[in-house]
């Protein structure tokens, strides 16, 4: 596909998702509450969108991943959260 074709096919969809992210961050800012590791991880992951380097999807996923290698002693439940709590302590 040419760049023109990719933009014709995906620009409006990506534009809509970008505005959703912007609106989500505004919504979080308007709400009361303290710091949350998910938001900090989200902001860190977002940096890969604007740095102009390739493999952005992979880097965003890595920024939201547990980077350790040792199994945990016991499963702390069944679900996943979407960000690794120990990456950003803020």
């Amino acid at each position: 596909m040419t760049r023109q074709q990719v933009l014709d096919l995906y620009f409006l969809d990506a534009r809509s998702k970008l505005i959703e992210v912007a609106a989500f961050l505004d919504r979080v800012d308007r709400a009361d509450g303290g710091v949350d590791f998910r938001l900090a991880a989200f902001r860190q992951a977002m940096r890969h969108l604007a740095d102009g380097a390739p493999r952005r999807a992979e880097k965003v996923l890595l920024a939201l991943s547990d980077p350790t290698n040792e199994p945990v002693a016991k499963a702390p439940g069944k679900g996943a959260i979407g960000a690794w709590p120990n990456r950003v302590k803020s």
Partner: protein
Amino acid sequence: MRFIEPHAHMVSRTTDDYAALVTAGCAAVCEPAFWAGFDRGSAAGFHDYFHQLTDFEPQRAAKFGLPHFCWLCLNPKEAEDLRLAKDVLALIPQFLDRPTVLGIGEIGLNKNSRNELAILERHIELAARHDQLILVHTPHLEDKLKGTRLTIDALRNQPRIRPERVIIDHVEEHTVKLVLDAGFWAGMTLYPTSKCTPARAVDILDVCGTERLWMNSACDWGESVPLNIPRTALEMRRRGWSAAAIDRVIYQNPVQFLSQCPKFRLPPD
């Protein structure tokens, strides 16, 4: 268009989904054993579930002319209870000779715990002992990267496991190369909110090629889309893929992997 749905939890779906799959060109459906959404209280619960997967569900699919195959295991979400897990592992061999059982799956890790890893190793050992194909579930979201690495290590630690007989499912952009570079097959799951969208799955095919890759909807009791393989085929069409290249990914690739089990037979066209 024809396609194989290699990973769908049909016990959680309606007959309307069977009709829709067949109408869209589905030629076979394969159902890995899964977590029911709640922990089963005893191995007897698994006995009944394996009976449902190997007997009742193929009959239900047959009403729509659809071949139904399955994989057996205890899901990693239930692996923290080691006693239950060992009881279930002991049950599995009596079902392995049933005519529609393809192998051991979907095994793997969920929260990357020691008990999950121990039970994963027991499943891998069971598959090696009975010369079974393996289908691996990789964890969700932040746990996927670590779980994929630990799973690859566990598979490599069992010398009788041949990577071309193992598919590691639910890969995304950050894990697909780990899996393919180690010689395993990789599955892309087309699932809302988590895992891959159709557009990203086609991106992965653009970047990684079409060797040793398949797609599935993994439709289950959660929010999921049973027709996501044909929808992704449409995405490929819009991006200029030929009908032959699409057929390779959504039909021939799963047939190639699954045919390593002699029980995977499709009726002639």
